[in-house]
């Protein structure tokens, strides 16, 4: 546990890793992992727990979306509280666009699973690559909004992913060559989603995911991305032209 003198970023990172671990347990059906966030109330640092909710965003709902797990009402109240303590930003810079899309996805799923309507509208623009040479910055942005890579969050972001699998594949390849495995895990998750809806991936997401499981380190958030990737691959056909 982070020391009492740890910076907010250090404390919030540790809290997000802990919450990702609980979401992962819930996704994998680990016994006793039904409550995800409510048990976080037993920690001393409530603010870090709420920060973790904001950082993970719509990934918190991955067990519900992918396995039909029940979302506890107290968890729904905690997500709403996290938005009150750390409210959404409302400017139009590139970084804020990333945050706006993540907030929209969390709000959508919260409403779907019985929580309050947080009044977060769908953002405008910033979805598709500007040109074929824009793949590098675009794929980096897609990695930042990887929590949207879940079924049912239909949006221009999903359309952009399905329309630009080659750009995603280039970004994934670049991340693997740079050994930036967390980014690679986020991008392979997008390609798994594309494959799950019948799209053709330029790289085999299953092979890349297996490689990342072996060499991607022991970060819980990366492990969560890979578990979600596996669920997505299980849901649909694998790309590479296989029918």
């Amino acid at each position, binding site marked *: 546990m982070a020391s009492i003198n740890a*910076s*907010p*970023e250090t404390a*919030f*990172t540790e809290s*997000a890793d802990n919450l990702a671990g609980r979401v992962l347990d819930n996704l994998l059906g680990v016994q006793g992992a039904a409550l995800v*966030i*409510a*048990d*976080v*109330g*037993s920690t001393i640092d*409530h*603010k870090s*727990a*709420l*920060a973790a909710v*904001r*950082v993970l*965003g719509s990934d918190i709902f991955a067990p519900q979306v992918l396995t039909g797990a029940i979302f506890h009402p*107290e968890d729904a*109240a*905690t997500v*709403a*509280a996290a938005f009150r*303590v*750390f409210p959404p*930003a409302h400017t139009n810079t590139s*970084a804020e666009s*990333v*945050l706006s899309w*993540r907030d929209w996805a969390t709000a959508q799923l919260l409403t779907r699973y019985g929580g309050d309507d947080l009044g977060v509208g769908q953002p405008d623009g910033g979805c598709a690559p500007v040109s074929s040479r824009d793949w590098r910055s675009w794929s*980096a942005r897609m*990695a*930042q909004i990887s929590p949207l890579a879940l079924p049912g969050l239909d949006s221009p972001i999903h359309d952009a992913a399905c329309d630009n699998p080659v750009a995603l594949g280039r970004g994934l390849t670049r*991340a693997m060559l*740079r*050994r*930036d495995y*967390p*980014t690679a895990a986020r991008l392979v998750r997008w390609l798994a989603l594309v494959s799950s809806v019948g799209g053709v991936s330029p790289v085999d997401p299953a092979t890349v995911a297996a490689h990342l499981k072996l060499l991607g380190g022991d970060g819980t958030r990366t492990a969560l991305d890979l578990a979600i990737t596996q669920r997505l691959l299980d849901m649909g056909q694998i790309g590479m032209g296989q029918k």
Partner: protein
Amino acid sequence: MLTLHRSPISATLTETAAVTALMAEPEAAISDAPVASPHAAGILILAALLGPKTEPKDK
């Protein structure tokens, strides 16, 4: 059990900025491939001059 949703807490600007930074986490800052360093040759020569000297073997 403690209930987070009833706690009247607020975030400071620093804490909000920390959450924002973690939500928009960029790709890892990994350095590019190593580039030639004009000073490397001098460092190697210096290391060779300062290295332990060995006596030539008797033939």
